[in-house]
């Protein structure tokens, strides 16, 4: 494209149309986000008159009040604990299962694998009431694990599929040579498979993290105590309290989506690869 551009006449209507179209979509995406970020710097009165554009007086107070309140950090901490638990447990259980499916032939292996992939067919919402009762009966209601364990269970299907595909592509000769030298399967898993699989582990970990970080329904059903709320629940409570003080709510939204955006900029390769490649196998 770039080489063709130079030779093309400057007034090619197709190029012009393309540029205009892309600009229109970019504005459509950007305006709500920018208005949210800037809205947090305005006073309520200014917001009402000028929701667009830069603030006339930068009200740093809105952001500062939230950043210096314990509330914001507590929400982030809770989210981080739940997401970390979910990611760690998913990576451990899914990689062990995927390793077994990839390298060990046993009676019923393909049947068990199809059993696990059933999890791709329906959303967690379908059985959320029985799930609630199950978690209650296990005594896990209102705990981090009560949210994390079901999240792990629901992310297993996709994770096992992605990991198994990667593990199978590790040259079989490697495994055979290791076994001949007296290495056990478990040591092979620990010292060869896992180190070689860092990219896919990062991808699976990132998708699981993003899903868990953004989750709303499961924490909403499983948690009752404000002190345990992850940020999506906390921000809904905050919005309920400050119902129409939009300048504060916008500042709060900006601060809570900031970690996601930073993570996205840092790990965009893994996120895009994971979210689309995970899809392709679906």
């Amino acid at each position, binding site marked *: 494209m770039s080489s063709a551009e130079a030779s093309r006449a400057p007034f090619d209507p197709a190029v012009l149309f393309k540029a205009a*179209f892309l600009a229109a979509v*970019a504005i459509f*995406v950007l305006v709500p986000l920018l208005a949210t970020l800037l809205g947090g710097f305005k006073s309520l009165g200014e917001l009402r008159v000028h929701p667009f554009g830069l603030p006339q007086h930068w009200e740093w107070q809105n952001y500062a009040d939230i950043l210096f309140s314990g509330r914001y950090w507590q929400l982030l901490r809770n989210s981080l604990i739940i997401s970390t638990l979910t990611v760690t447990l998913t990576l451990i259980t899914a990689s062990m299962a995927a390793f077994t499916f990839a390298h060990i032939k046993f009676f019923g292996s393909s049947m068990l694998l199809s059993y*696990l992939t059933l999890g791709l067919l329906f959303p967690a*919402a*379908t059985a959320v009431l029985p799930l609630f009762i199950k978690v209650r009966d296990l005594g896990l209601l209102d705990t981090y694990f009560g949210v994390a364990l079901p999240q792990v*269970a629901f992310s*297993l299907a996709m994770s096992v599929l992605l990991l198994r595909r990667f593990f199978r592509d590790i040259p079989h000769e490697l495994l055979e040579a290791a076994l001949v030298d007296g290495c056990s399967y478990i040591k092979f898993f620990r010292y060869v498979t896992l180190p070689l699989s860092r990219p896919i582990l990062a991808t699976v970990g990132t998708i699981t993290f993003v899903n868990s970080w953004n989750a709303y329904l499961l924490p909403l059903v499983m948690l009752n105590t404000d002190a345990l709320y992850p940020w999506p629940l906390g921000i809904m409570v905050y919005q309920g309290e400050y119902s129409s003080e939009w300048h504060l709510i916008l500042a709060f939204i900006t601060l809570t*989506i900031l970690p996601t955006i930073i993570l996205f900029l840092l790990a965009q390769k893994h996120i895009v690869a994971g979210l689309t490649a995970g899809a392709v196998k679906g």
Partner: protein
Amino acid sequence: MSSPVGVAGEAAPLAAVRGPNWDSRFTVLILFLPPALLLFTLFVVLPIGEAAWYSGFNWNGFGRPTHWIGFGNYRFVLETRAFWLALRNNALIIAVSLAIQLPLALTLALMLADRFRGAVALRMLFFMPYILAEIATGLIFSFVYDGDYGLVASIWRTFGADPPHLLASTDTAMLAVLIVIVWKYFGFHMMLFIAALQSLDKTLVEAARIDGATRTQALRHVVIPLLYPTIRLSVFFAVVGSLQLFDLVMPLTRGGPADSSNTIVSFLYNNGISRMRVGYGSAIGVILFVICVTFAFTYKRWFMRDE
């Protein structure tokens, strides 16, 4: 656990098949598989089975279910007008995904698949709404639509008109939700198409061009047909996504006003979960499960046979 017999493919004598590593294989089998299977069975499979069981009871979740009412809950669900409204809204979401979101995503993918300055940045920008939490997205747009402070209201006022409260009217609430859905998800579908376009065999397009096809002809008769598998996949995700849509609706409208913007899951939440009507809610869950599974199997059978 099923007995882990060392059936290693060839019909060799058992002892030889077991070989020196049989112990180590066996250990892996009994250590590595159970955690995943246990979690999956406990939190995914059993609850679905229990949903079917609970759906036969009138039960508030305390004690044990005793009041058996057979298919009563299913009858109540199917007789609720709001359920059919929710179903209609899900169909509407799918229709908008197919008619607006998919063509938009495809067009953008065709524009951004080539490398030129800014293409990667634009791709990332368009993909970004997809990774934002649905709750945050919903809140951002409830500001955008707000009748007093919002962006839409401000545009209205510059034309001297009275700003509408889009989310508070049964006529416009669903429309407003649909716009947010397109905003949030088109970038994901665009990325699917870009990934497909980049792995496309470019010699086919070149061959068509050499044979005298115009750009448009090459696009219509070569590129688009090669993208059919991805288009089918994108449709699949649009439908599945619509069937589980919930988080986005809650901050925008909570399914209201007057149930006009419920999806199946928000209907399930408002009528089953938030009132702890376990039997009724389970019945909705089972109906949703049947819809999902039926759709997945039929779709795979009819449209994705070759993949």
